[in-house]
């Protein structure tokens, strides 16, 4: 466990100094997966054999290489959310419709990790097609929260967050469309970063809502997130929405000075509906940050109240479009009995998709359809402009914004599955960030009286992940929380 508690940088150093063999690290991790998986169900696929083969090669190569020839993730196993393509490995998107799909190519982020020596340990569970806030809509069953197995780990990257939390993953890549990295990170007591839209390539990420999706790291500490960001960030010629912005050295900037930074507390985020203990812990963290020299002021994001509604028009619309390709023709599950082509489509998709996915596809189809486009989709995109401007205005006064991640701590499995809208409202603090395309960090800032983790969110200016990582790192060192669940 000591080994699995180490940061990626520490592990990298040990390997580089030849004090740790990749195979030792892998075996330790595999053992931990074995110990925890039955309880957690954090993985859909564990690529044990493939990982062992690669680590064997890594061990041998290690003997020949000198210290500075060894890349920073050499022989280190990373897990990947199961909606990101890893070549040759099954990618299900937690759906029946892709239950046997083998990825024919690597996502760009996977390719970049590979180039730095990483090996892949498996694919983490998620809400089906990343649509959800609890990982309960997975075709492969829910993942459980390592802090309380009766509770959800959050979603949609629940598998990644739970594994990192339980140390059955050293670090993971998740995806975030409305909070899917940040919310599970806060429910599981780990760190999750959603980069600025365009900072990280989406090539290879199964699209959910194209104008909102981003891939980001889920790690045990802020430093690991920064290290992974160094590797996965940067323009990709295969993704026309990835930005031409240069990539700073995130890892070195996290130790920078935070004194003098200005932080904003949006008044609309601290109203009714937040669990008192969540509010309390967030304010305590704010006090700690003040003691480090950060100045806080109240700001206003007036259109906050409309963010969830805006999102639930835009995201399903784009999703309904992106999921049309799952049609039983080229690479998916196909229904067995059908009379003709249209029947094949309808039965394949009816049998292959779960209810939440169907709901979102249908809402999306409706809001894009003739006669409704202006009233719904177009309208929502206009409100999005207003939300974007809210942040623009605020960032004239402050360097970053502080909010809770979720109004509550992890809720019980099954508690919200009958009420889609109640489920949607758990994203209330994370959603506006995706609409505005901004970066945001979620990290633990305390526990409630049941011992459940509470997360705090730092929202940064576009392409200013450095500031929020810096602040996160400073807070982490201040709080020195024990984030190991009693699993």
């Amino acid at each position, binding site marked *: 466990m000591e080994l699995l508690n180490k940061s990626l940088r520490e592990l990298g150093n040990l390997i580089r100094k030849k004090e740790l063999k990749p195979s030792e690290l892998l075996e330790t991790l595999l053992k931990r997966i074995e110990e925890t998986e039955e309880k957690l169900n954090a993985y859909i696929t564990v690529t044990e054999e493939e990982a062992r083969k690669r680590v064997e090669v890594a061990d041998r190569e290690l003997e020949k290489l000198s210290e500075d020839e060894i890349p920073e993730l050499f022989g280190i196993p990373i897990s990947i959310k199961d909606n990101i393509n890893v070549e040759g490995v099954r*990618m299900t998107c937690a759906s029946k419709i892709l239950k046997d799909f083998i990825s*024919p190519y690597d*996502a760009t982020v996977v390719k970049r990790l590979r180039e730095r020596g990483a090996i892949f340990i498996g694919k983490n569970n998620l809400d089906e097609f990343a649509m959800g806030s609890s990982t309960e809509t997975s075709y492969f069953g829910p993942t459980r929260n390592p802090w309380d197995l009766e509770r959800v780990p959050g979603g949609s990257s629940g598998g990644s967050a739970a594994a990192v939390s339980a140390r059955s993953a050293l670090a993971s890549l998740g995806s975030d469309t409305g909070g899917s990295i940040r919310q599970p990170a806060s429910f599981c007591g780990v760190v999750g970063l959603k980069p600025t839209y365009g900072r990280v390539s989406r*090539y290879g990420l199964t699209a959910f809502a194209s104008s909102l999706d981003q891939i980001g790291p889920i790690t045990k500490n802020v430093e690991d997130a920064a290290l992974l960001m160094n590797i996965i960030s940067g323009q990709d010629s*295969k993704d*026309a929405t990835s930005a031409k912005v240069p990539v700073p050295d995130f890892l070195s900037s996290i130790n920078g000075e935070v004194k003098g930074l200005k932080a904003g507390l949006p008044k609309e985020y601290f109203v009714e509906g937040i669990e008192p203990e969540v509010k309390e812990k967030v304010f305590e963290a704010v006090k700690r940050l003040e003691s480090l020299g950060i100045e806080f002021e109240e700001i206003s994001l007036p259109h906050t109240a409309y963010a969830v509604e805006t999102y639930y028009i835009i995201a399903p619309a784009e999703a309904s479009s992106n999921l*049309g*390709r799952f049609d039983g023709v080229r690479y998916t599950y196909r229904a067995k009995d059908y009379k003709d082509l249209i029947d094949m489509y309808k039965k394949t998709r009816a049998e292959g998709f779960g209810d939440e996915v169907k709901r979102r596809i249908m809402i999306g189809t409706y809001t*894009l359809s003739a006669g409704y486009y202006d009233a719904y989709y177009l309208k929502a995109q206009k409100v999005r402009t207003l939300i974007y401007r809210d942040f623009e205005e605020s960032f004239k006064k402050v360097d970053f914004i502080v909010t809770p991640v979720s109004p509550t701590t992890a809720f019980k499995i099954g508690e919200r599955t009958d009420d889609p809208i109640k489920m949607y409202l758990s994203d209330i603090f994370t959603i506006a960030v995706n609409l505005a395309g901004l970066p945001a960090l979620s990290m633990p800032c305390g526990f409630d009286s049941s011992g459940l983790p509470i997360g705090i969110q730092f929202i940064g200016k576009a392409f200013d992940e450095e500031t929020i990582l810096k602040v996160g790192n400073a807070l982490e060192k201040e709080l020195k929380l024990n984030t190991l669940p009693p699993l």
Partner: protein
Amino acid sequence: MEFEAVIGLEVHAQLLTKTKIFCSCKNEFGAPPNTNVCPVCLGMPGSLPVLNKRAVEYAVKAALALNCKINRYSVFARKHYFYPDLPKAYQITQYELPFAENGWVEIEKSDGTKKRIRIKRIHMEEDAGKTIHGEGFDENSYVDLNRAGTPLIEIVSEPDISTPEEARLYMQKLRDILVWIGVNDGNLEEGSLRCDANVSIRPKGSKELGTRTEIKNVNSFRFIQKALEYEIERQIKVVKSGGKVVQETRLFDSQKGITKTMRTKEEAEDYRYFPEPDLPPLIIDDEWLESIRESLPELPDQVKERFISDYGVTSYDASILVREKELAEFFERAAKAYKGEAKRVANIIISDLLGVLNEAKLDISDSPVTPEGIAGLLTLVDNGTISIRVAKEEVLPEMVRSGKSPEVIVKEKGLVQISDESALREVIKKVMAGNEKAVKQYREGNEKQKQKAVKFLIGQVMKETKGKANPRLLNELIPKVLEEG
């Protein structure tokens, strides 16, 4: 009651880029099925489109050649429908903001009059794959996605076309221009150019538009005319018998020469267009636009006018010469190399060279005969070395066959014609001696009979000299000799 037709055409033209519009798979016709495909054009999860720069350049080139205004800012959109050869279940196209608008093309009708057909808009989009339907008892269809992702421009005309003939001429003109500027290969059988027609009828002189039908995928010039002829008549019949034309999509059955219903308005698709989130808007700035404009060659109509005014070529001949860019270039080079009348160059190219090349199954661009060779050939005729007949019938074909220059061929084959007057006189006298009847006819006959006699004797002299006598000289000499007694 007399009716008139109102026709609008939507033409899809493939662009001759090396790769597809949104991925780097090869853009080529005829490859084995599903070999030019990748995660992007297969619509696999996680794939993303990236726009081909050359596709934009070719599209803009086409729009400029069609006199359009180029929109500096245009947006891609998704058009949704389900079909097995549409991998993403949406086509990336342009909807509200196309890259080009308000152009025109001029057609020349068979009666010589010209008509301008306005172009409403041109937009870029990706082609779908091909679905082959099983025959007979085969209940399956077969999908090949090689073509999915081929760059297309869709050219939408205003409903300015009034007859099926005009429609055919319009489509031919579009094709000629697109091939001329090098963005399309004009190959309709391979689907490089495809056409959908919208047609309605109305009482002659009326300003209101009648209900229109759409005829899809008519893929030859002949069929476009036929399909429209049939459909217009069908609509007239419907209206005359008291019925109403139903707004619907119809398919042309080329075997039977009829159109039939494909789907009605109720079954019409709801495409649920919205702007493509995976692609930034396309910005064509002044600099880029100018550089593309500069790369445009002189267009066929301008070249044709120039041939008429600068080279004295007839309008008819000029039309033929500008059918192909390579042909126009060939003519111009030959005309410049030849010191005499360009008209003669045009004539020998059109009446003779093209025929010989055609028989040898050669294109003008593969011609073994060079423009300078044509000039040389005509010069040999001018200076009397060979007759025009020998030039066309013997030397030119040999030039095509062997690629040798006319001078060499004339020498090798000993075709130099006899222009020496005294030598010719000898032969004429000989022929006269052996053909007393003709001589008598000349001496005693009227004008007409005289001409006949001369002609006959020319023929005999040619026979005698194995075609080498200079016919021009003969024409002068024979009467002279006959007169001299």
